[in-house]
């Protein structure tokens, strides 16, 4: 047992090293000498405020800090190191105070808020403290009706601007959404929330069972599976209309829908033939095409979103469920996992990795935990991201490939958590009822 962490961390370093060489934006958290940008973010200066709106300033500051911290690419300079007077505008900035110790920041984000006449005005800047001649990297101005939602929205937008500039040109995820299943209303229904757990909102009201939400790449529809009079069917919820819309019904039970990243095709599992198999169908309906043929269960497809030429799924043809990949026409089947109980694959946006849930050591006398793993599809090298804290399942990648959202029973009841793709910075996003099967929006 003692040797285990060492072997694991060596494996992890191997994979981490390959990640780093392939993509400089993956942070490994294992001290490989990749320095995160030291970013100082003093609270924005409140210039004027209508009565009763002081809390907007606090909401803005907390949201901005949380977004930047969660991004995983910054070393956030603790506020206790900041100079006593913080700037609200460029003329108030003394770069030397920020670039030298104790803050020792290489970047400074600052600005001001004015809440006047029911409108919220925010000015924000990003300064390179080591470049006194031309420090400004970013200067932005926002104006929205003054309310809590807009204070969060402006913070998200400014955070994403900073992340885009300093994070290798990859868009941030502060404005993305998560879709999930919650039973807090009394039955399992599809819910929506912001990427940080805010604004949790019930979408469906089936009163039976709804599972496996997957949002369309354009963010207009959510495909899910629900129990109807005709058994399990793939159902659609229109986010534009705010209600369920019709989608083709098939024979047998149908569930676990997955969108191709071009929005053209939906892969799903159907029992219409007697065995459960993977099928694909046009997202506008039509005849379904059968992709697998085996006696065992086949379920939980996920597309390679980079190419849409491959599908990974869970097959039970050899006994306990394993992850397989195939071409999107059903040919070229490859078994990916070699042991244990492997389910719930999610393909990374760059096409390189599969995240999935794995009870790696399975069987009598080895009651392993279900943990989240990431595997490099080409080399089949894997890294374990969660470590025997409850049962972990249903990982889903963020569109920037830096984060993974998943469900875990680590605190007793199953809840939804997000983490960086190296397993660090775990955050609990839900608390009410039981919450499962999170799905991260494409944008």
């Amino acid at each position, binding site marked *: 047992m003692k040797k285990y962490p060492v072997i694991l961390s060596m494996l992890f370093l191997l994979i981490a090293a390959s990640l780093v060489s392939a993509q400089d934006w993956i942070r490994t958290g294992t001290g490989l000498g990749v320095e995160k940008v030291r970013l100082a973010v003093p609270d924005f200066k409140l210039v004027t405020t209508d009565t009763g709106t002081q809390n907007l300033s606090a909401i803005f500051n907390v949201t901005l800090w949380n977004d930047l911290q969660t991004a995983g690419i910054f070393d956030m300079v603790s506020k206790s190191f900041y100079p006593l007077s913080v700037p609200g505008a460029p003329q108030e900035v003394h770069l030397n105070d920020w670039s030298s110790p104790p803050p020792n920041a290489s970047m400074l984000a600052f600005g001001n808020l004015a809440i006047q006449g029911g409108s919220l005005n925010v000015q924000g800047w990003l300064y390179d403290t080591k470049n006194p001649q031309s420090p400004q990297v970013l200067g932005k101005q926002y104006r929205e009706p003054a309310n809590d939602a807009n204070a969060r929205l402006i913070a998200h937008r400014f955070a994403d601007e900073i992340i885009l500039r300093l994070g290798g040109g990859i868009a941030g995820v502060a404005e993305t959404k998560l879709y999930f299943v919650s039973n807090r209303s009394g039955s399992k229904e599809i819910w929506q929330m912001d990427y940080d757990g805010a604004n949790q909102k019930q979408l469906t009201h089936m009163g039976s*069972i709804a599972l496996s939400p997957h949002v369309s790449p354009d963010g207009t529809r959510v495909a899910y599976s629900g129990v109807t009079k005709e*058994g399990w069917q793939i159902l659609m919820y229109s986010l534009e209309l705010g209600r369920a819309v019709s989608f083709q019904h098939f024979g047998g039970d149908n569930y676990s829908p997955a969108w191709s990243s071009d929005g053209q095709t939906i892969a799903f599992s159907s029992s219409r033939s007697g065995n459960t198999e993977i099928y694909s169908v046009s997202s506008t309906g039509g005849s379904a095409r059968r992709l697998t043929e085996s006696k065992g*269960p086949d*379920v939980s497809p996920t597309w390679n979103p980079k190419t849409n030429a491959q599908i990974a799924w*869970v097959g039970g043809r050899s006994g306990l*469920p394993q992850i397989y990949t195939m071409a999107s026409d059903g040919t070229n089947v490859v078994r990916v996992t070699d042991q244990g109980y492997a*389910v*719930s694959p999610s393909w990374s946006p760059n096409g390189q990795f599969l995240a999935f849930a794995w009870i790696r050591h399975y069987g009598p006398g080895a*009651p392993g935990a279900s943990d989240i793993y990431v595997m490099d599809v080409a080399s089949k090298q894997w890294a374990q991201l969660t470590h025997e804290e409850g049962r972990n399942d249903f990982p889903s990648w963020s569109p920037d490939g830096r984060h993974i959202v998943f469900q875990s029973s680590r605190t007793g009841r199953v809840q939804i958590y997000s983490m960086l793709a190296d397993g660090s910075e775990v955050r609990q996003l839900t608390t009410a009822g039981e919450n499962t099967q999170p799905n991260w929006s494409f944008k």
Partner: protein
Amino acid sequence: MKVKEEKLKLTRNQWIRIIVALAVVLAVGACGKKKVASAPPPPPPPSPAPTASLTANPNTIPAGQASTLTWRTDYATDVTIDQLGKVDPSGSQAVTPAESTTYHLVAKNDSGTQEATARITVVSSPPPPPQQTSSGTDEQLFSGNMKDVFFDYDSYDVSAQYQQVLQADARFLQQHPGMKFTIEGHCDERGSTEYNLALGDNRANAAKQILAQLGISGDRVRTISYGKEKPFCTESNESCWQQNRRAHFVYQK
């Protein structure tokens, strides 16, 4: 379960430490103070908390047949099984329950109590002859005669035992050709949500296919999987899980 085991190990370790420490103190005392009258003997250390396990083999039997209960305890001074009364600390005994029974073992000593349970599921076989339709509704008749099929973990194979159950089910269905029904596939809570849905469908379809071989038309049958969404039993133990791995027959009105 795991937590309990760890606690137990801890107490055992602690006891070893205490005993070693006591031995050292006694040895030192014996060497250094030979002339002094010996101290009153320390009270005997309480024994560690008991451990207990109870299993039934087989844990599913046709009515009238026997299953063997096997139990094992450590450190217990008093061991009882609810249905059998006081028993030896470890042992085994054949039992023939008339209906599905959960056997409950309690092992006690001065420092604690440990419980263990094992469930024996009794399957009625052969089924009682169909009753007259006048004695109940078709739905009651159906549920009184159609016996469910139970499965091993992660399996959708119908064992020889349940092939026989399905033969009896098929005889009943042939005598009542007007009845339509649904086969629900169910799974225990351990698997993953989506995989369990697929597994449940395979279970329901396995039962449907065998009934078809026995002459029951597929037109009378609908199948649906509930995966682990509608468990019959909600405790986290094998006897409960076993109840949930089934193809369940429901009368279709």
